[in-house]
């Protein structure tokens, strides 16, 4: 990639029509995110975190302005190309885990690889590796309904990172977890960030997450209130 950055937004606006008025969910967002960052979008509920994350993840498009993700202009991306971008380069983690209930742990993690047409032996290797990362190799034959919330989210993390994407987007990943599991999850992701140099972006308003972040962008009513780098040495 010729660009040194991974993600760049310029004069990004997202507006939702609300009856006669318009709700400005994102208000002139200008940020640049580089490879290997471990970044949190923080701010109160309704501040626009999810909306920004979705646009970066090509699940939504901006109303105005431009967003470049891994060399793709999100605002002009076709539905097909957006799907391809997500399939090949982006992993998602959701607040509610969103595992496929009829699949086993193994099959859930394998799924993104099936979409990529990766051959069986290679798939098996990658899935087992991802399950080792999150410490759930021994639960590979379980169904999601047999797992605790913490375990489910770890499966979701394995599913997000199994294809070794450049970028992982996590929307309130700890919101449904207790403190112990939240820390466990965050530690897992820090480890992956350091070992694989995967870029992580969180949307969160969970205080427990804050201390893990290396950069924190605070949103308020759709605009950037603060953008701070946190030196790990301070921790």
């Amino acid at each position, binding site marked *: 990639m010729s660009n040194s950055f991974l993600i760049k937004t310029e004069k990004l606006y997202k507006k939702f029509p609300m009856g006669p008025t318009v709700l400005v969910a994102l208000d002139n967002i200008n940020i640049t995110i580089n490879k290997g960052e471990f970044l949190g979008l923080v701010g109160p509920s309704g501040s626009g975190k999810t909306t920004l994350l*979705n646009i970066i*993840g090509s*699940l*939504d498009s901006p109303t105005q302005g431009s967003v470049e993700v891994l060399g793709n202009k999100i605002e002009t991306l076709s*539905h*097909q190309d957006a*799907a*391809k*971008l*997500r*399939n*090949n380069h982006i992993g*998602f983690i*959701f607040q*509610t885990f*969103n595992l*496929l*209930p*009829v*699949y086993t742990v193994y*099959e859930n993690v394998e*799924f*993104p690889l*099936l*979409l*990529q047409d990766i051959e069986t032996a290679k798939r098996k290797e990658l899935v087992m590796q991802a399950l080792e990362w999150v410490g759930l190799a021994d639960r590979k034959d379980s169904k999601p309904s047999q797992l605790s919330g913490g375990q489910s989210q770890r499966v979701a993390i394995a*599913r997000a990172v199994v294809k070794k994407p450049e970028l992982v987007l996590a929307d309130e990943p700890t919101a449904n977890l207790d403190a112990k599991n939240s820390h466990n999850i965050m530690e897992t992701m820090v480890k992956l960030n350091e070992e694989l140099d995967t870029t992580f972006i969180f949307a969160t308003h969970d205080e427990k997450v804050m201390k893990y972040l290396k950069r924190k962008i605070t949103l308020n009513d759709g605009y950037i209130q603060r953008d701070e780098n946190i030196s790990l040495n301070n921790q």
Partner: protein
Amino acid sequence: MLIIKLAIKNLLGAGLRTWLNVIALSFSYVAIIFMQGLYAGMNNQMEASTIKVQYGGGQYWHELYDPYDPLSLDDAHGIIPNEIDGLIKSNDATSILIRQGSIYPNGRMQNILLKGIDPNQKILALPTHLLNNENGFIPALIGGRMAKSSGLKKGDFVTIRWRDAKGTFDADEVKIVEVINTEVSEIDNGQIWIPLDRMREMTAMQNEATMIVLKQDSQFAKNLSGWEFKNLDYLLADLRSLATTKSAGASIFYFVLLLLAMLAIFDTQILSIFRRRKEMGTLMALGMTRSTLIKLFTLEGSMHAVLAAIAAMIYGGPLVWYVAKVGYGLPASTNSFGFALGDRIYPEFTAGLIIGTILLVLIVTSIVSYLPTRRIAKLKPTDALRGKFI
């Protein structure tokens, strides 16, 4: 391949609901195949018996004979051509003379057809040998329907009246020597069979006939002046169109059955598309396109038909095989249909019927499964993930 695997997994994962749909749909398969097979068997048996007792290997009609016009019978008789004489002598054909007449059972008048047939004929499977019994009376055979409508029984005497070749009325008594329980109403309703020679005397029509019935599989088809050859296709046309009408009537039944099964599938599809928005959002986030999602959900619905075909084979296969082997006993009342039927029908389940039915159900199920999925084309990934729909 991926979506086929995924569709099977999802379908089996849906549990009871899937099986209820599959069972409902499998009933459609079995009912359609069973009913169609039954009708096919029924029609073939009907044709076979009609050929046996009525049509033989085709008929020559006197050129003036019109079965739909009783008045034509006054003139529809002629001397049997020489070529046919030979066939009759060698038992390869038999002739029938038909005249209008009337009977007076219990003092009421009833119009009938008087039919003369050679008691020794071997062409039609009728007990005409009973007409050899001439002991000072004219022996007569009637069918079960005729017996019912006239009130005549075996052993009864009844006065018949007819006109001879010159148009003069004459009357005599006949004795019912047997009531034939035939399945073919066209040799039964409103007619009395008597010996051909006797009838020729009564009508002064020596060597004459109205029609000649050829032996089954006869190759004889010469042009005879004054006579028209009617082959089996012509003779069976009415019967076949009747069969078509009857099977169309029956198809309403399984159309309704299929409709109910389709409603269940449609309902399931709507419900699953409505309930599984979040799953769709997740699949889109994982990089699945909308068109793949549409394929997946359509496939899931269509797969009901595949599972149903398997279920239908498991319980319907032995049933169909057994019935095809031992036949299907008809309720007694069916005879009044006017169908030419034996006591048992042997349904005919052809590969064409079975494959055709599977294809029909599969195609209809696929269409019904596809229709609700079109809504996915408008689904936004963000809305789907939030559990919101359109």
